[in-house]
């Protein structure tokens, strides 16, 4: 087996790609420079009263940009499509494109379905009217699918993510696997890391860790922020003062110092994360209970069974979440019994729990401030006054009048905040806090790779670029959503 190059049999295309990109860059720079100069468009008025205008220099450059962009994208697409069929014959990129086949299929199906039914899908459908939103959504869904197919179904990963392969230490991308057997994948597509593990497989395994934690942590932070922020904004007064002081207190903490204090094995021993989980995870339950009760309390015959079912399932999930091995808090000196192990639906690794809890804890005050501000603004509207005149209760007004009208900014912030949470998770990994050192998540991998950065940068660059694209996708998605939600 020989060493793979990046593009393999398709390398003649590289020249064209380089040309197209060069033309594109030059044209864009020219376009920007031209936009500074005032344009004098040559307008001609003909005898019959009709007018004609040539598009001038800026129009000409605009056309070049347009075509150069199309050519660049077409060549990039060609690499991917050819790669799917030719596999590693088309080099490392081809090999990766082929490994990622399930992701491509899932993405195409998602886009086809969404664009077909976009008029029936509300805000989500409108996303497909904005180019920026579509690009962002594509990047995000790429990593979601890649994480799912790679981390859960093991369809993308080429090698085991934890085992070390002899002779593969710090090998550059495309190195053939030494002593590979017939059934094995023959190359390390993105090289080996400093412990001779496959960077490519770890990358996609690690994607799942991020995709799994970040949205949930953000969701919990939103539940906490909304449940506390609405009454603070709506009632004001002393409640507002106290809650705002607490929120500012947490916000005044430098995030990294807080992480260093909270996410350590010693703190896990004291059971503090468990207590925090106990408090923070109860908010979704409270939120749901108030939400449904406020809406249906006039129909007790419907409300009571609904609440019993919802709270029953919720309480079971909550107890499974907070209790491990039949105990909610288990320290060397004492233990608080929780759900018995036989009823426990799932256990969460204590290291993961502390990471999750601290990320929620850091994010919740910001959400609180946003929700409080929105509630302060919206409570002066006429429809709130109308609801008050109708005699609706305060919680009904907060959750069914104010909250739905604050959804636009909240959805946009939700997307941005997932990105921010991803960055925070990476920061934790970067400082080696929380997750185990062999965990494939991106932050930990960057941390492991940075020691040899000046000699073997590939092991750290792969997760760094991945994290960048995911967060960029989330930011673009938020931008697209903001644009579309402002339009109506």
């Amino acid at each position, binding site marked *: 087996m020989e060493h793979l190059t990046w593009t393999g049999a398709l390398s003649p295309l590289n020249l064209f790609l380089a040309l197209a990109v060069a033309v594109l860059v030059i044209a*864009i720079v020219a*376009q*920007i420079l031209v*936009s*500074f100069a*005032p344009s004098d468009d040559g307008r001609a008025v003909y005898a019959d009263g009709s007018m004609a205008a040539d598009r001038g220099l800026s129009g000409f450059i*605009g056309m070049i940009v347009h075509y150069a962009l199309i050519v660049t994208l077409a060549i990039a697409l060609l690499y991917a499509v050819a790669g799917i069929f030719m596999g590693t014959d088309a080099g490392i990129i081809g090999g990766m494109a082929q490994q990622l086949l399930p992701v491509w299929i899932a993405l195409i199906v998602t886009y086809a379905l969404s664009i077909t039914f976009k008029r029936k899908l509300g805000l989500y459908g409108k996303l497909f009217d904005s180019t920026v939103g579509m690009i962002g959504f594509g990047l995000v869904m790429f990593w979601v699918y890649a994480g799912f197919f790679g981390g859960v179904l093991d369809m993308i990963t080429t090698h085991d993510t934890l085992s070390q392969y002899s002779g593969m230490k710090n090998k550059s991308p495309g190195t053939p696997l030494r002593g590979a057997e017939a059934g094995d994948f023959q190359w390390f597509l993105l090289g080996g890391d400093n412990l001779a593990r496959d960077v490519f497989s770890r990358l996609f395994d690690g994607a799942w860790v991020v995709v799994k934690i970040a949205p949930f942590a953000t969701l919990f932070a939103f539940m906490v922020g909304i449940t506390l922020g609405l009454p603070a904004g709506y009632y004001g007064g002393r409640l507002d003062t106290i809650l705002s*002081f607490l929120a*500012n*207190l947490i*916000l*005044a*903490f*430098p*995030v*990294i*110092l807080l992480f*260093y*204090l*909270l996410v*350590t094995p*010693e*703190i896990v*021993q*004291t059971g*503090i994360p468990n207590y925090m989980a106990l408090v923070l995870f109860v908010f979704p339950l409270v939120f749901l209970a108030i939400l449904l009760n406020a809406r249906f309390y006039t129909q007790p015959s419907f409300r009571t069974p609904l609440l019993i079912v919802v709270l029953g399932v919720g309480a079971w999930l909550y107890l499974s979440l907070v209790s491990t091995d039949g105990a909610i808090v288990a320290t060397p000196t004492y233990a608080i019994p929780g759900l018995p192990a036989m009823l426990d639906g799932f256990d969460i690794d204590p290291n993961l729990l502390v990471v999750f809890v601290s990320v929620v804890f850091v994010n919740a005050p910001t959400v609180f401030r946003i929700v409080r501000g929105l509630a302060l603004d919206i409570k002066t509207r006429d429809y709130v006054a109308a609801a008050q005149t109708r005699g609706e209760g305060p919680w009904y007004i907060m959750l069914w009048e104010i909250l739905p009208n604050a959804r636009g900014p909240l959805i946009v912030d939700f997307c941005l905040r997932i*990105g921010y949470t991803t*960055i925070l998770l*990476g*920061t934790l990994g*970067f*400082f080696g806090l929380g997750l185990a050192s062999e965990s494939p998540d991106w*932050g930990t991998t*960057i941390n492991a*790779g*940075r020691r040899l*950065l*000046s*000699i*073997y*940068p*590939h092991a*750290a*660059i792969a997760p*760094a*670029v991945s*994290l*960048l694209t995911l*967060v*960029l996708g*989330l*930011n*673009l998605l938020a*931008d697209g959503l903001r644009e579309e939600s402002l339009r109506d």
Partner: protein
Amino acid sequence: MGLFILRRLGVMLLTALCLTFIVFWLTNLYPNLEKLAKTQGNFRMSDEAVTSYLDDRGYLEPLPIKFAQWLGVAPGWVTQKDDGTVLARCYNEETPVDERRRFCGVLQGDWGKSTVFKDDVGAIVATRLALTGKLMFWVLVLMVPMALAVGVLAGMKEGSKLDRSLSTVSIVSTATPEYVSGVIFIAVFASSAFGLKWFKGSATSAMESANFENFFLPVLTISLYGMGYIARMTRASMTEVMTAQYIRTARLKGVSFGNIVFKHALRNALIAPFTVIMLQIPWLLNGVVIVETLFNYKGFGWVLVQAAGNNDIELLLAVSVVSVVVVLLTQLISDIGYVFLNPRIRIS
């Protein structure tokens, strides 16, 4: 105004007290103390040895008393050991008897001793802060003009090609945390793999003599992440100003575009970014910790990591006091500055 500042200072003091108490509580939890005893003594200490070590050094007193000692409102601990040696918070064996103080805490100007660096906390924090100050100064010098220029240029003509390309740049820069951009910069500009080697991948030598080669990458790494956000805020404020009535009037009167931007729009457009820049400074602190770790620049952020990693209680407290003061002071300045810059608020 005076009353406003006084009230804010009061809240600041209360916040700082609460926060230091939280840090104090977290660092004084028993498992943390045990770790401290074992790193200071030896790792194979028995449980009794750990307890007596901690007891001798006043760590096992009730939390409020220890906190009061640190603040300097309660007399420092003194332990008379069986063999006659005396251990005390405020003095050691060599101190003459008449110079021995009872109180030594923050109020007396005594920040305690660092267990990691075996030095006075005040001295460590001062030297490290000076180093980080140097870094921050260059970050601000690079970041603020860059961010304002990008924001103003993009906001000048909303929807133009220039606006779109600059907005893309600022979105990309907000999406790149320091540990990503730092890694990419080192790999591309300082590693042998790409062969460029324009800069140095470590900023250790910049502590004594900073030059372009060893200091530019860390400065750039911190600046980029903060730049995008400030640029986007500047752009938003600039586009808002550019659609205002008085700008339209100026255009209709025939004022040239350059004059409109520089003489009429810019002043009003820069009020909002000022607050954003001030509020961004505490966020730069995070960047500083990451970048100082990545580039091995031994400043304030590096000390934070060392202190937190080794549970160096008094150093950690001083670090948190400094960072809390930075956060709250910038908030205060941004509020006051907003009032002074905005004529509509100043006059009424």
